[in-house]
């Protein structure tokens, strides 16, 4: 394996050497004319796919092409939450596998991603919601996933600063997944990039795909801003831009792109030592290790590629924050930013082949792609290398919208604003 290994000894050695011996974490190669596989999109999912292709399947003659710099998209624009507390049988094993990969990730890729299993508490505010969460918790435990239904006093013990007696949305309790938590999001992109690069994967930044070459139903390569690259396998991991890239191969996807805004407050001393979600709306909050409160709510709710949202959503997010935790009213907001979500029509992702031979699709992550990064890369690599779905991602088929095998966690139908 190439490159430097990080350890306590390398830190001490560099401390004595005045920090002069650190190497670049990945190379900046020129793209070769041909590879065994091309991955379009140097975000978390694309880089994880490259890493697992090299590690699990021995495919090292591959390239990740990224139009900007790696990690410039949603992997650096999310609220860093990881969890596996889904409901449907097609989803739970996938997200649980992802959580297990998170638990071993840092040793696996030799990189500190600050994985912190500080727990995720989904609050409930009514008897009906309690029953729904109990059902979810039972579904999780039947799959061997940890879940604990907390009553009001147990939540109060963990988070005394919440507004338990809110007139409209009193807090009755919460569903806790203790193994959930947060991860330093940028470090996930950097860690996977470095680990893939050490195994020989080329990562080519500032290389925009402008066309996909298809002949007789077989993909032959891509056109890029840095020239053509040939490969018999081309894999799309383009998140919010999936529809645009797939259209280059003549495909229409069951996806709309929407903007989701994330927020961070000014830094403050440790306050929230877990992740809390508001059950009477759609709001989630945690505290970063730098001290800022990191939070977000829903998508703006109209097609957008703008990477910035509008004021009504910001206002609604702040209203939810105040309903949950009135003390937040004393805080100043530091900044907010938008990411472009690939909202699938049933709220669940797609990891599948396409009607074009050799063209693979990884898309439709809606607002929850970050937590899925390891399992997404792992199962997408399996699909690309072996041309068959990995069992954990077997339900994420592209044709499910025609066959009716939908994975609609929220049960709201083909309206992406409800997912």
């Amino acid at each position, binding site marked *: 394996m190439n490159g430097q290994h990080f350890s306590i000894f390398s830190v001490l050695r560099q401390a004595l050497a005045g920090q002069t011996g650190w190497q670049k974490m990945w190379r900046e190669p020129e793209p070769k004319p041909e590879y065994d596989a091309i991955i379009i999109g140097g975000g978390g999912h694309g880089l994880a796919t490259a890493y697992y292709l090299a590690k699990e399947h021995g495919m090292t003659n591959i390239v990740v092409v990224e139009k900007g710099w790696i990690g410039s998209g949603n992997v650096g624009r999310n609220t860093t939450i990881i969890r596996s507390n889904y409901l449907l049988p097609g989803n739970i094993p996938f997200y649980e596998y992802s959580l297990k990969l998170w638990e071993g990730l840092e040793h696996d890729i030799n990189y500190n991603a600050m994985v912190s299993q500080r727990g995720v508490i989904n609050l409930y505010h009514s008897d009906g919601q309690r029953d729904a969460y109990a059902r979810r918790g039972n579904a999780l435990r039947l799959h061997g996933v940890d879940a604990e239904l907390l009553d009001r006093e147990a939540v109060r013990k963990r988070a005394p600063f919440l507004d338990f007696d809110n007139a409209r949305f009193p807090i009755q309790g919460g569903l806790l997944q203790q193994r959930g938590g947060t991860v330093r999001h940028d470090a996930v992109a950097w860690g996977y990039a470095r680990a893939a690069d050490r195994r020989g994967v080329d990562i080519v930044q500032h290389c925009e795909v402008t066309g996909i070459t298809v002949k007789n139903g077989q993909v032959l390569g891509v056109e890029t801003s840095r020239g053509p690259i040939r490969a018999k396998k081309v894999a799309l991991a383009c998140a919010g831009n999936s529809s645009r890239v797939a259209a280059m191969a003549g495909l229409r*996807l069951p996806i709309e792109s929407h903007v989701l805004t994330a927020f961070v407050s000014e830094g403050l001393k440790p306050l929230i030592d877990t992740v809390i979600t508001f059950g009477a709306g759609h709001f989630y909050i945690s505290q970063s290790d730098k001290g800022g409160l990191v939070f977000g709510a829903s998508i703006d709710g109209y097609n957008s590629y703008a990477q910035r949202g509008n004021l*009504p959503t910001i206002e609604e997010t702040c209203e939810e924050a105040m309903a949950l935790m009135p003390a937040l009213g004393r805080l100043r907001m530091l900044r907010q930013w938008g990411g472009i979500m690939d909202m699938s029509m049933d709220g669940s992702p797609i990891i599948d082949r396409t009607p074009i031979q050799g063209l693979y699709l990884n898309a439709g992550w809606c607002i929850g792609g970050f937590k899925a990064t390891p399992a997404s890369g792992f199962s997408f690599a399996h699909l690309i290398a072996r041309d068959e779905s990995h069992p954990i991602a077997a339900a994420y088929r592209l044709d499910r919208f*025609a066959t009716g095998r939908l994975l609609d966690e929220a049960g709201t139908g083909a309206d992406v604003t409800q997912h």
Partner: protein
Amino acid sequence: MQIPCPYCGTRSHEEFSYGGDANKSRPTNPEFGPDWVEYVYLRTNPAGAHRELWYHGAGCRAWLVVERNTLNHVIGSVSVLERP
């Protein structure tokens, strides 16, 4: 983002509900088939000019056809949806 409603004037988009792509047309064929999959699930999802529906629920309650650029949210023409 503000939408110039032909009846009510320029209003914040929070007064409106989004109705999605205005170019879709509902299949006349009552049997489920590829045309229904196309109508219900598939989207062109362009980056740039988008013809879309908005319902002015907190105003005149008209359905509008809005041309909006999805790259920068700039709104072009707005017209009232004609009844079929």
